[in-house]
């Protein structure tokens, strides 16, 4: 089962996902990066149905890039998140995308933002979010540990604690995870657990 988690700090967003790609009872791949960049300062964390996941995010990313080419300016994270929600909502009653996602980004004018979006196109901006069975264990832990003035080191600590909890208590816990951070300098990999 996919695991996604996100933490927003005062000047960064940290996202984490597991790295297993599973088909029925078989693990096809142990190094699947589910934290997909949309542009230099935005990430999708995607989970769900295999084909839908990649297809949908590639579609959104392509449209975001097209906008940038046509208009000479990048879309804000809020705009990308709302565009994504609208695409999911339109498809919901035709041919739904079975994918839950987190959208994290850093904008010059308003700083970091983090959105949770489920496959029904329910979207909400949150400081901490999670998706999958792992979120049952991790959300309450993050609620306790989160502060407005979180540092990157604190957030990484929180994330690692969350992953440890998932590994020890979730029966179908994925073995490996990747953690990335977005700040004013862009996206970088922080840790691979």
């Amino acid at each position, binding site marked *: 089962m996919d695991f996604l988690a996100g933490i927003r700090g005062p000047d960064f967003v940290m996202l984490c996902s597991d790295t297993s790609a599973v088909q029925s009872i078989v693990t096809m791949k142990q190094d699947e990066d589910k934290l997909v960049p949309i542009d230099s300062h935005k990430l999708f964390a995607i989970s769900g149905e295999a084909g839908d996941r990649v297809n949908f995010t590639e579609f959104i990313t392509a449209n975001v890039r097209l906008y940038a080419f046509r208009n000479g300016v990048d879309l804000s994270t809020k705009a990308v998140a709302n565009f994504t929600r609208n695409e999911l909502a339109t498809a919901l009653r035709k041919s739904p995308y079975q994918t839950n996602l987190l959208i994290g980004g850093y904008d010059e004018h308003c700083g970091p933002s983090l959105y949770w979006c489920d496959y029904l196109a329910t979207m909400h901006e*949150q400081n901490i979010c999670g998706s999958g069975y792992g979120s049952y264990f991790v959300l309450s832990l993050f609620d306790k540990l989160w502060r407005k003035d979180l540092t990157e080191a604190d957030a990484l600590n929180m994330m690692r604690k969350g992953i440890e909890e998932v590994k020890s208590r979730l029966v179908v816990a994925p073995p490996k995870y990747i953690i990335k951070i977005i700040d004013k300098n862009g996206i970088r990999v922080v840790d691979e657990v």
Partner: protein
Amino acid sequence: MSISEYNGSAIVAMAGKNCVAIGSDLRLGVQLQTNATDHKKIYKIHDRLFLGLSGLATDAETLSQRFTFKHNLYKLREERDIKPSSFGQLVSTTLYEKRFGPYFVQPVIAGLEADGTPYLCGMDSIGAMETAKDFMVAGTAPESLMGICESLWKPGLEPEDLFEIASQALLAGQDRDCLSGWGAVMYIITPDKVIARELKGRMD
């Protein structure tokens, strides 16, 4: 669990003397897991008209965007804000258009007519509308909310008293329902201003 109870919501609207109150809980859940505690279900159409949408959160968001769009076009064409009674009809027809594949929302509309008379109406997910002179409730705890509103409400309440009554009713009703709650927001609409207040409730 039915689709209207997937996210959880509680909405109360009450009429007073030349004022209306409309409030909602703040919980956003995914079945029994609480995801966020700052998700309002009340949307402003214009200064004297508010729309509360209970039920499935994605449809509530989609519909609120559609109604904002429709009202923007209405304002351009008619050069004025829409009347609450007309907006009620607009919501009803919009929902009935999807009669055989409906939006899973139960709207509550609260507003003031041009002369300050309160307007309250509620409908089901396919647009069956009923106006009320006293109060209107919707969400995952309608029976609890209905009961407390019936005992607390009386006609001719001034804005401050209406706020108290409506807030107590909302908090009491949502406390008995596990799918709604986690705080509340209450809007009091009077002819000259709108006051929005966040309520402290049981966070469970």
